């Protein structure tokens, strides 16, 4: 009874706990928080030596790669799952605190949280536990492709196959959905992070320059593309010359980035192809008619849909506002969670 009263005071939340960004959807309010999944932890010395959280989210992300030795900037999520349990818990706690207005009662909301479809039982358990540790009274898990499909507005409950490709920061999720359930779910641990990594490695190899994660991400967003286009764009980048050890500026073109991204993109393409291979023929016919929908931050990579179209020969569309698809899908599931059973994932 008491918990019922408390849940009356605290709003239910849907959380897209992503490798790159964490989005929180509050029931009947919409998406209220969209911050990078980054935590900065300060090590205090002296007599009261302890670790404190210096910053969370956007603020912490700006410290990434710029922090002194006393501050560690951590991305507690890796490949879509928890890499650092305690820090994830603290980060969630801070985010939940941010979205809760009432200061009087410590919030204990019901939380829907999404997990990669390929995550193991241990990884799901970790996410559930960290959400409970962050103050949730109940935790429901939903698989990311399902949430993405709902958020993209696909007819998930109908007897027609819908294919969704969610390219997140850590993982790429491919799901084929029909009648409110997942017919096929595949997950490869390739996402935005791997693309950034590929750019860093490429520049290091070919230019002998070291660049940071944020710079790499910036390059990817500005001139990155997945398919050779007509126009070639260029961008000026600064990094540290490995040979000289001095910061230098150099210019890099979109074709080079395309070359850098070939390998991770091929992984994504093969994940999509293998999903298509394993789709039952009736649903495959629906998918051939409608094509697949791209969601997640990776869908914003220029011409990624062209690449998938050429590789698969199927129509590919990019969802509207792909970055928030998963969070919106979780939110829709949250609004109707008392009536829905089939869309939630088991442990």
């Amino acid at each position: 009874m008491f918990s019922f009263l408390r849940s009356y005071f605290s709003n239910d939340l849907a959380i897209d706990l992503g490798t790159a960004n964490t989005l929180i959807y509050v029931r009947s309010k919409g998406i209220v928080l969209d911050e990078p999944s980054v935590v900065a932890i300060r090590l205090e010395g002296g007599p009261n030596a302890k670790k404190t959280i210096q910053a969370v989210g956007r603020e912490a992300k700006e410290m990434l790669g710029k922090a002194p030795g006393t501050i560690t900037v951590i991305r507690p999520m890796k490949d879509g799952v928890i890499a650092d349990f305690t820090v994830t818990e603290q980060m969630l706690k801070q985010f939940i605190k941010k979205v809760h207005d009432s200061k009087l009662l410590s919030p204990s909301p019901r939380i829907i949280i999404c997990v990669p479809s390929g995550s193991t039982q241990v990884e799901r358990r970790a996410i559930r536990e960290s959400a409970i540790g962050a103050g949730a009274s109940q935790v429901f898990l939903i698989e990311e492709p399902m949430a993405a499909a709902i958020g993209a507005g696909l007819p998930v409950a109908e007897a027609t196959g819908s294919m969704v490709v969610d390219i997140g920061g850590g993982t790429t999720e491919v799901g084929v959905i029909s009648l409110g359930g997942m017919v096929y779910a595949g997950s490869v641990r390739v996402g935005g992070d791997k693309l950034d990594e590929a750019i860093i490695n490429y520049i290091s190899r070919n230019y002998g320059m070291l660049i940071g994660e944020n710079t790499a991400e910036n390059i990817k967003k500005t001139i990155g593309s997945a398919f050779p286009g007509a126009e070639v764009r260029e961008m000026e980048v600064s990094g540290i010359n490995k040979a000289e050890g001095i910061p230098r500026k150099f210019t890099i073109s979109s074709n080079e980035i395309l070359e850098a991204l070939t390998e991770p993109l091929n992984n994504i393409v093969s994940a999509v192809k293998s999903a298509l291979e394993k789709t039952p023929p009736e649903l495959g016919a629906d998918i051939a008619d409608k094509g697949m929908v791209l969601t997640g931050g990776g869908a914003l990579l220029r011409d990624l849909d062209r690449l998938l179209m050429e590789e698969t020969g199927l129509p590919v569309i990019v969802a509207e506002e792909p970055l928030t698809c998963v969070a919106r899908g979780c939110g829709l599931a949250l609004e109707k969670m008392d009536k829905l059973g089939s869309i939630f994932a088991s442990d």
Partner: protein
Amino acid sequence: MSEENLDPSSPSLSENVEAEAPAVMQPAVGEQLRAAREAKGMRSADVAQALKLSTRQVDALEAGDWSGLPGQTFIRGFVRNYARLLRLDPDVLVGQLDPRLMPELPRLDVSSSISAALPRTGGPQRRDFMVVLAGLLLVVLAVLAFFFVPPDFWQSRLAEWSAASARVDAPAAESSAPTDAAPAEPAPPAAPPPAPEAPAPAAAAAPASAASTPAAQPVLQPVSQPSQPLPQPATPPAPVAAPAAQPASPPAATAPAATAPARAGGVQLVFTQPSWVEIRDRSGQIIFSQLNPAGSQRYVEGEPPFALVVGNATHVTVKYKGKPVELSQRSKDDVARLTLE
């Protein structure tokens, strides 16, 4: 022209007026796409090839025939792709799309007209459940009965029944009533005058009372409930004794006048409130011990001296050998302990 394109999708919708506003100013999205494609000298087959759509779908897009296309999300996506292919601004075109195509909240629950749970096989059967339920019900009833039915329920019922059915027994019961109430067998021999009466009228009074005045009958009834501590066992004895004694013993006939002087040797108790009384006779045996309801009277005979313990003494009047006994002086905490010689 543009209105025609929109019409097939939803001719009956009332939002036609709203949809017309942009349509009047500009050609429909499909028209714009077709014009741009023709300007580039592409055939619809080329577009279908580039977008991996079928030619039918491209034609449907250009004609604005949404019914043949797979749904709002996909229509918007296809228009976006088509616009990008033709280097038009996709956002502008998608913005001009019929507002009726705006994505509405997708239904998440699988529609079903029937909602019946399948019976579980191998699990516990429903019948077992019923048996358990019945058993529980019985237990509950038993517990309720234990607490709420008075312990002497059946005795009183039997007594009432026997009283109603056999008034024959009434005189006998009546005469033994006071002594029965005090469950002391030695009492009757100790009180010689009424004791011998009892068997005699029991047989003799049967025809007598049956034949005698009807006035006797109502009197008999309350008296004939020996085991039930009913109010007037003491007052009726007088009139009751009269008809009962009439045929049998003249000395008993004098009893009514003096309010049981024949039993002068006994203890008379009158209760105005419920009270517990215990009486021991000479031998120290308990000859009377019970809780007496308010308004009742008791007459106890035995071999004196009597040792009395009277609870709630202020509401009990004790008469011994016809004289009232003062209790208040001998009571402590409303319990009187006294010995009557």
